[in-house]
């Protein structure tokens, strides 16, 4: 009698953002192709991933696709829910599962959330911010949508390495901080370079009639940074960690307001 079932070959790849290798397992070759294309430049080969997700590629997971993101923890297991995905992740076992359709956006959201959870416990964060490396040092350019993150990225001269025009990845390391490139893009629609450098400054972006850098009071620096952090978890302990991390960051990294005319001369002030 012929075999009615066949073993499905597991497929996997490693997505390494911020130096954190995340293995993604799927049985869908088309989805694997999507991931290879989406995360080109951020694919790793780590034997031992720090996090491992099995992805069930399935029909739409939620009948109401516009519900917001909910990230909750119960008994050491994180639950991530949105209109287009359902996911679970257990840090102790490093393992998780994602249920989504075959698209790159849902897993992108899951990865962002998981990285915010990992970083929050280590004093780091993801921020609404462009970032770039110049002369061996990295710089963050933070602001809400329309503040100029993509504009300042577009204006960068050739000796500048862009890390992202939208979401910056910051890890605490020794006495300072390091910014990493990310594949999370804004209007520039160009993946950042997968490199890192010690963080030298955070600039809060404002557009004006002249290029200038102005100091800002520490309280405003902390408030502005907090307003630009990505954080999704409904978890009091992590909220407190993130809050105190922001204050520690502004006590160690210079924070200034960068007012700029949208032309390339602004980069004469950076680096």
């Amino acid at each position, binding site marked *: 009698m012929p075999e009615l079932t066949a073993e499905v070959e597991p497929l996997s790849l490693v997505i390494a953002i911020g130096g954190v290798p995340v293995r993604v397992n799927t049985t869908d070759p088309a989805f694997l192709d999507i991931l290879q294309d989406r995360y080109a430049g951020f694919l790793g080969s780590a034997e031992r991933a720090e996090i491992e997700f099995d992805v069930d590629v399935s029909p739409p997971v939620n009948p109401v696709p516009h519900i917001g993101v909910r990230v909750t923890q119960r008994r050491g297991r994180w639950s991530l829910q949105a209109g287009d995905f359902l996911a679970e992740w257990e840090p102790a076992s490093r393992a998780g599962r994602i249920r989504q359709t075959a698209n790159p956006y849902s897993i992108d959201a899951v990865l962002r959330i998981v990285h915010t959870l990992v970083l929050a416990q280590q004093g780091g964060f993801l921020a609404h911010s462009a970032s770039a490396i110049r002369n061996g040092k990295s710089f963050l350019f933070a602001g809400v949508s329309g503040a100029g993150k993509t504009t300042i990225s577009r204006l960068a001269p050739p000796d500048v390495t862009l890390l992202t025009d939208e979401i910056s990845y910051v890890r605490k390391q020794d006495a300072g901080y390091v910014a990493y490139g990310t594949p999370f893009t804004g209007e520039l629609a160009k993946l950042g370079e997968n490199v890192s450098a010690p963080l030298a400054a955070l600039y809060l972006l404002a557009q004006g009639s002249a290029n200038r850098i102005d100091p800002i*009071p520490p309280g405003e620096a902390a408030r502005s940074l907090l307003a630009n952090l990505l954080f999704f978890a409904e978890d009091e302990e992590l909220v*407190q960690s993130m809050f*105190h991390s922001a204050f520690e960051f502004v006590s160690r990294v210079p924070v200034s307001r960068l007012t700029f005319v949208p032309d390339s001369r602004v980069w004469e002030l950076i680096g």
Partner: protein
Amino acid sequence: MSRLYVARNPRVAARSLDGEMMIMSGRDSTLFTLNKTATILWQSADGATPLDEIVEHRICQEFEVEPAEALHDAETLARELASHDIIQISEEPIPQPSPGAGEAR
């Protein structure tokens, strides 16, 4: 007339920076910046000192204000802070957990 007691919610995160007190709700990550009066109230909210004593010994000492008016304003402020879960209010003293969690650094 009953007295009102106020206590910091240990489940919020608080920091003072250059005299500016910022507080983040652990419940929904909302950030609050307290004015001078609210900062004094927050710092004095130990669960054991009645609000009228806080007003008399801290707020009236700091600002030139009539005690009765100051107490009325402080009660309004305390109820507003309580509505955001930043402090707890009660007509009885409020027992506090061991020092540490959520205290201003």
